């Protein structure tokens, strides 16, 4: 059809269907990471909460130290320490209600225990006696996820399901800066926004994915800026400021709970230790950088605030430490006992009903073990 044949007059106009689906402006993060401690906002913070955060941070750091010590004693296969990131770990757990769900990544053991999971059970994966030690339903904590970013769509699906069922449940999912590069991050955020699922994504930007610094991971102004591409708000927060992280996450959780949909939170923090005990961080970063961050330590920041405001006396500090030491001693003791293992467990939960094939294999292993035992008893090889 040429213009000579067209019906009606031609009116240049924008494409008919097009309109922005959301206003981008409110979705964009602040220009700098949001802070509370040492700023005027701190005055509004609940002293009780600050003290609670403090106790938890101290406990968390002690846990990290103890777990790292256990790797040296061969009691853990591996441990990815979150030292320096305790504010994120603790705030993530504390921002949730009991009925909510937490989806941790493999580094987030602290968040898991802050949610009430037994400290030993939280280490099962890393100790190596099984893949998950706790009952996910008991504390509404998904298994620690090793394949990066894969837990994010799970959180979205769970939150969506809860909403469909009419339950007041929010899911909070944790991921690292490196994990944001994975396709699953993208797909999860997109599903969450389209479904307006009650889920909060917490990115702990700790500067590195093992050895790879953030500059090789993304060219975005900030990771929080990714939110606008999904149509959800992005928030940028100082991840070492426990009060700020707690506030931002609590806001996001409330927003989700009220039907406002998902939020992406980037917490800017730093991994003080090596990636895991097996890593050699000297290969890819210098001390100066680490030292700069030591001065911005989450416990220091909070302690200073509490001290300045007269909210911290020696008593609270002592009790926090004692509490942490008790936890550590208990952890050490229990982790020093060999776990009880039954090789037959290998076969029993692969399927709801163990297949004939697996029953055969189970029987074979049992026979082997019995034979070996008999050999031993008889002093044979």
């Amino acid at each position, binding site marked *: 059809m040429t213009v000579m044949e067209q019906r009606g007059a031609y009116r240049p106009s924008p494409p008919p269907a097009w309109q922005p689906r959301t206003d981008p402006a409110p979705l964009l993060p602040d220009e700098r990471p949001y802070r509370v401690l040492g700023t005027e906002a701190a005055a509004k913070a609940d002293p009780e909460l600050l003290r609670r955060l403090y106790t938890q941070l101290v406990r968390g750091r002690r846990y990290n130290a103890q777990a790292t010590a256990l790797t040296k004693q061969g009691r853990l296969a591996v441990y990815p320490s979150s030292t320096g990131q305790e504010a994120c770990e603790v705030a993530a757990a504390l921002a949730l209600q009991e009925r909510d769900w937490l989806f941790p990544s493999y580094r987030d053991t602290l968040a898991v225990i802050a949610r009430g999971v037994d400290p030993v059970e939280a280490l099962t994966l890393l100790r190596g006696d099984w*893949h*998950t030690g706790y009952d996910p339903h008991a504390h509404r904590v998904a*298994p620690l996820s090793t394949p990066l970013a894969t837990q994010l769509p799970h959180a*979205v699906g769970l939150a969506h399901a809860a909403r469909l069922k009419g339950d007041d449940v929010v899911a909070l999912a944790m991921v690292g800066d490196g994990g944001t590069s994975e396709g*699953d991050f*993208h797909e999860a955020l997109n*599903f969450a926004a389209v479904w307006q699922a009650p889920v909060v994504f917490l990115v702990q930007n700790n500067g590195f994915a093992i050895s790879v610094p953030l500059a090789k991971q993304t060219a975005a102004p900030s990771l929080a800026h990714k939110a606008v591409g999904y149509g959800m708000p992005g928030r940028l927060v100082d991840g070492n400021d426990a009060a700020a992280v707690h506030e931002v996450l609590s806001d996001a959780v409330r927003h989700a709970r009220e039907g406002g949909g998902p939020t992406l939170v980037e917490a800017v923090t730093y991994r003080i230790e090596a990636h895991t005990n097996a890593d050699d961080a000297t290969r890819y970063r210098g001390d100066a950088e680490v030292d700069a961050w030591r001065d911005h330590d989450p416990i220091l920041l909070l302690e200073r605030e509490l001290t300045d405001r007269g909210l911290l006396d020696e008593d609270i500090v002592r009790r926090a430490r004692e509490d942490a030491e008790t936890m550590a001693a208990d952890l050490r003791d229990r982790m020093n006992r060999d776990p009880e293992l039954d090789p037959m467990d290998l076969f029993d939960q692969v*399927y*709801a009903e163990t297949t*004939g094939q697996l029953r055969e294999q189970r029987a074979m292993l049992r026979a082997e073990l019995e034979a070996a035992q008999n050999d031993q008893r008889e002093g044979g090889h």
Partner: protein
Amino acid sequence: MTTVAVKPATMAQALTRALRDAMAADPSVHVMGEDVGALGGVFRVTDGLAKEFGETRCTDTPLAEAGILGTAVGMAMYGLRPVVEMQFDAFAYPAFEQLISHVSRMRNRTRGRMPLPITVRVPYGGGIGGVEHHSDSSEAYYMATPGLHVVTPATVADAYGLLRRSIASDDPVVFLEPKRLYWSKDSWNPEHPTDVEPIGRAVVRRTGRSATLITYGPSVPVCLEAAEAGQAEGWDLEVVDLRSLVPFDDETVCASVRRTGRAVVVHESGGFGGPGGEIAARVTERCFHHLEAPVLRVAGFDIPYPPPMLERHHLPGVDRILDAVARLQWEAEG
């Protein structure tokens, strides 16, 4: 088969009915995938479900297979029973990590505390003139993944029965739907659909004494045809339809092979590293002294799936099956 209510139905219709009945029976069953809503799926298997049960029970998702399966995992964690549709076989590959690293392992990972009753429906196989990436047979990948059930119907009645069983299963099931049988018809009464045996039971579709054709899904009708044609050449062929590759029904298969003493495994999937290797190996392990000849395989070639105009050369057909039967060392008998 001549009662009044019984009229011909296609496999696609039986699948639709299975979904519908499952959704009606259990509000936790949710169908999700690309184009499953208003369109009813590109093969129309979800036709009418969004209308009947609403968009939250039959949901058009964004176009991202890992996201579909990944969110289904979360939904299952919260007690739903997601039935995921992958649009074509090759488009399930983006969801591979979720399937292998989570779906297949979550029950085991959590010692049974977090089972994932997810059904992943995958239209598979060729013979429909599909362009590249639309005709894959990927069952070997799923078979090699412990923790999954792998089920595939070959008849209209089985399509209904096995899909109901799969959705009801507390384990993840990869439910492989033979594309070219979607339009296959059989007399079948949707109002009184026959239940089928639990997942994991093969069935003898045709009895015979000369040799056993072990097959599944799209190759079942081909094998039955070959068995008919084989009569002219003096062979009385038994045809076993596996129905589920996992669990594998050694009992039914081996009983047949022990009776006949000869076997050919037939499937469309590539031969090398395909299901036939496992099947031949395990049958041989169990029936060695009953075998008059090695278990042979008739399979797709070890090539990427061919373009539409050449696919007929790739797909196992009657002649190729009978050629294999002829190679079963008959002289050794006499």
